[in-house]
């Protein structure tokens, strides 16, 4: 392994600009003559817009324009769409309601935008926005997904507010499995609704050049190419070749910046109307009412087991809240990213899952770190843990008895796991966590009046999304391949243009490590370019832990082509047959001789083209590829959480966290560990601290960082992190992906640990001190024992 190649903990290239304040996030981009946009948003969960009076606002100082939904509709600007078709059990297509970027007739959630004010400064725009008079007629609203089907109908297209009633698996076979069971474990689970809260608020800056009829959008996007496609093809703002989308430095995404949002559409439309660049940057309170939220499932789940604790079947019925409108990929999250993972790491013969997706008068819900897989893992890992406790089996043993041990393994819910060693990660985690010493530590805690608990989560996820044909057959509107272009310059330095997009993942470093190792050139001589549709050919962006498994595989394919072409050039230079040229450590050698040419010399010769005729070989050294994966990848591992609960206050302290993950090949262990840490923190946040509260009328009670608890440094421990490795056979590098693991594994580990400590399974997330204390009071007899 070289100091900067695959497997090396190289310091990140991108850090210098971030630690010196030189990052360029969307709000940092300043265009000549730019104006600022402020949106007028509904304070009501559901209302009819009777009249909007913009006259007073237009008369305010500095105002350049005030635009409403009626004008947007008059200009025939299309609405936003959901790009994944799900069919109900009865074969009917999902009920997708219109989603205009500015509401013209009705508003359907608090924060729904009805108008935009554009002014010279943000302060002027804000002042004028307060002068926009909107006359609303209030309508009854529903915010609780459990009550959605009986609530007031929000959209004409969706009776009973039902988007789809979907199922996966064989219901009859599962019923037979349950009929034969010796033990059935039943759980009611709420997977709490979360706000992603990337620390960089969303932003959009649009500029129109009338000379070239060209629109440019700078935005906080995880996939600028898809944004361009959707905005041109569906919203119809500009043809694709007249729209450039640039996602510069992006300050965290966690899924929330995958989607196409109304503000981007409105800024583009408005920039053309006011003939000035228009910039909008969300304030945090706007993030709370406009960024797509995550999770929000209500589930009843059952596990059937034989007398030895062997799982015979699993069934689940889930209500998924998709909010007021269907966000870009919302339909896929509680279906193909959820129910397909209900087999966990276990050999479960029969699984059946029903999912009812509903509209409510709340912010749209879509993918948030893990997207469906955390919800699935929570169901499976809670069921298994509780089953073990009910049956008096050690929780590690029940897992071992049920682990899948032979690969490939076809689950009853679509997925074909290709490689893994679940015993290995469990064993390593148990050693690292010193599970053997737990009872002693528990007694020690008891001496201090505290309850200690241990919780496992042996999770699996499907990443590296995804084979285009497979997802197409499941309803995806796009292919999920990735593209790469490797440009070797005449001097031998290299630019890689990738369709992946980094917003914290360190692609500029890890991708350069791959190129450095493969071409034998210094790491410093490689630049990674991403996030600009004028520079990079079409790409699918970054989410679902796909940039290593899919994005880097595309680079490998392009590098293969570069090597093949360079060998032809070297053959001419060295006057040898192409088949005799070997490439190793940055040098082309004629096999069996000492005749060689360095990579840089070959690059130069490719461009000066003096040694070969243009009829035989094209000059230049630049290759592109589109890589479509052959399967999902299946990262898996074991997280063990150890907690101490204060019986007086109910406060939980995480005293030990051990994570052992199998991510396949690791390119940069420092970066991978960082991804694990961050994922765990978000999972612990869900388990202990975070949770959206809407009141029954659809008002968001947790609407700011004063009300919604984000994990802070003192809420978390340092983490013990280890890895095991089985390579993914589904991509050339053997990568599985690491971005979501922590967020997927963590909630179940935390709740399993607390319920172990307090001796009661009746615990909802977030397990705040109040929640745990209340559960403790109910469980007192067992806790005292």
């Amino acid at each position: 392994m070289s100091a900067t190649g695959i497997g090396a903990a190289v310091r990140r290239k991108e850090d210098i600009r971030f630690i010196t304040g030189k990052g360029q996030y969307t709000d940092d981009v300043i265009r000549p003559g730019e104006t600022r946009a402020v949106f007028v948003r509904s304070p009501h969960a559901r209302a009819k817009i009777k009249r909007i009076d913009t006259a007073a606002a237009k008369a305010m100082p500095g105002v350049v324009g005030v635009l409403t939904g009626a004008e947007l509709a008059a200009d025939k600007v299309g609405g936003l769409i959901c790009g994944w078709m799900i069919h109900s059990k009865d074969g009917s297509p999902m009920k997708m309601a219109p989603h205009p970027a500015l509401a013209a007739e009705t508003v359907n959630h608090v924060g729904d935008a009805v108008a935009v004010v554009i002014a010279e400064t943000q302060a002027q725009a804000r002042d004028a926005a307060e002068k926009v008079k909107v006359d609303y007629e209030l309508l009854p609203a529903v915010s609780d997904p459990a009550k959605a089907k009986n609530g007031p109908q929000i959209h004409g297209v969706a009776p009973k507010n039902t988007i789809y009633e979907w199922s996966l698996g064989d219901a009859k076979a599962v019923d037979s499995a349950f009929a034969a069971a010796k033990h059935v474990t039943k759980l009611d689970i709420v997977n709490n609704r979360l706000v992603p809260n990337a620390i960089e608020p969303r932003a959009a800056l649009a500029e129109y050049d009338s000379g070239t009829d060209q629109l440019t959008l700078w935005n906080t996007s995880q996939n600028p190419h898809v944004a361009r496609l959707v905005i041109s093809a569906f919203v119809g703002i500009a043809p694709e070749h007249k729209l450039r989308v640039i996602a510069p430095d992006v300050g965290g995404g966690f899924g929330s910046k995958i989607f196409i949002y109304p503000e981007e559409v409105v800024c583009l439309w408005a920039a053309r109307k006011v003939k000035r660049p228009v910039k909008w940057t969300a304030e945090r309170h706007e993030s709370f009412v406009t960024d797509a939220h995550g999770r929000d499932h209500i589930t009843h789940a059952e596990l059937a087991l034989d007398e030895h604790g062997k799982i015979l079947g699993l069934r689940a019925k889930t209500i998924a809240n998709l909010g007021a409108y269907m966000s870009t990929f919302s339909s896929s999250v509680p279906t193909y990213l959820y129910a397909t993972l209900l087999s966990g790491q276990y050999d479960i013969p029969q699984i059946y899952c029903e999912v009812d997706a509903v509209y409510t008068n709340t912010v749209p819900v879509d993918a948030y770190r893990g997207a469906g897989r955390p919800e699935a893992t929570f169901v499976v890992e809670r069921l298994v843990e509780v089953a073990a406790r009910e049956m008096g089996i050690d929780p590690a043993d029940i897992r071992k008895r049920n682990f899948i041990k032979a690969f490939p393994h076809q689950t009853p819910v679509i997925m074909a796991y290709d490689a893994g060693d679940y015993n290995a990660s469990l064993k390593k985690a148990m050693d690292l966590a010193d599970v053997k010493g737990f009872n002693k530590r528990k007694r020690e805690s008891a001496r201090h009046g505290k309850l200690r608990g241990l919780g496992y989560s042996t999770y699996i996820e499907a990443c590296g999304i995804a084979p285009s044909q497979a997802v197409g057959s499941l309803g995806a509107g796009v292919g999920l391949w990735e593209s790469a272009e490797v440009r070797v310059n005449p001097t031998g330095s290299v630019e890689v243009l990738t369709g992946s997009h980094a917003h914290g993942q360190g692609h500029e470093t890890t991708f350069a490590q791959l190129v450095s190792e493969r071409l034998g050139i210094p790491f410093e001589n490689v630049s990674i370019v991403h996030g600009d549709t004028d520079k990079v050919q079409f790409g699918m962006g970054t989410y679902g832990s796909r940039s290593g498994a899919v994005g880097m595989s595309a680079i490998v394919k392009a590098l293969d082509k570069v090597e093949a072409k360079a060998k032809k050039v070297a053959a001419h230079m060295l006057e040898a047959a192409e088949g005799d040229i070997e490439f190793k450590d940055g040098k082309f050698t004629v096999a069996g001789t000492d005749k060689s040419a360095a990579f840089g010399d070959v690059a130069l010769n490719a461009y000066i083209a003096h040694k070969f005729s243009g009829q035989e070989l094209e000059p230049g050294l630049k290759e592109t590829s589109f890589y479509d994966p052959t399967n999902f990848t299946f990262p898996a591992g074991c997280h063990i959480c150890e907690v101490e609960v204060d019986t007086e206050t109910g406060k939980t302290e995480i005293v030990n966290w051990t994570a052992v993950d199998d991510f396949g090949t690791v390119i940069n262990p420092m970066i991978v560990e960082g991804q694990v840490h961050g994922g765990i923190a978000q999972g612990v946040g869900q388990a202990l601290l975070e949770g959206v509260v809407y009141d029954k009328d659809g008002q968001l009670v947790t609407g700011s960082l004063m009300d919604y608890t984000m994990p802070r440094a003192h809420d978390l421990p340092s983490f013990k992190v280890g890895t095991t490795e089985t390579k993914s056979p589904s991509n050339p590098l053997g990568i599985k992906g690491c971005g979501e693991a922590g967020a997927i594994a963590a909630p179940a580990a935390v709740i399993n640990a607390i319920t172990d400590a307090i001796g009661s399974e009746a615990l909802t997330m977030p397990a705040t001190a109040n929640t745990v204390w209340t559960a403790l009071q109910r469980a007192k007899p067992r806790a005292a024992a």
Partner: protein
Amino acid sequence: MPAVSMTVNGKPVSGEVEARTLLVQFLRENLRLTGTHVGCDTSQCGACVVHINGIAAKSCTTLALQCEGATITTIEGLAAADGTLHPMQEAFRDNHGLQCGYCTPGMIMSALDIVRRNGNELDEHTIREQLDGNICRCTGYHNIVKAIAAGAKTMAR
């Protein structure tokens, strides 16, 4: 509009601002020092932390006019003139104490204030407690805590 003068990163600066203009707006919009970020609107996230007369403050909750005559240091003012990084900047890089980089300027400025208040030998508990005013969504704080401890040590040399 009222005028305001202050010293920012060693340079005297002045400008006309509205009475309600925040220090962070003055830094970002008037001076184009965009390294200081705004992550929230309730003084919770700490992405906007700068030093006012050597003490950490949230520039989103400070009026520009309050800083008349003050000495301000932002993330852009930490490295030496020849580009040599401040030991705390270096520590964040060495320890992978950042991912998306958005909270990082505030984290580094707050870290320096933790050192100012508590000295160069910082235990994990102290760092975690005193980082209460800064939120990071990417790192889970693990490597930020390591970076601050390491940076504090190096600063003593």
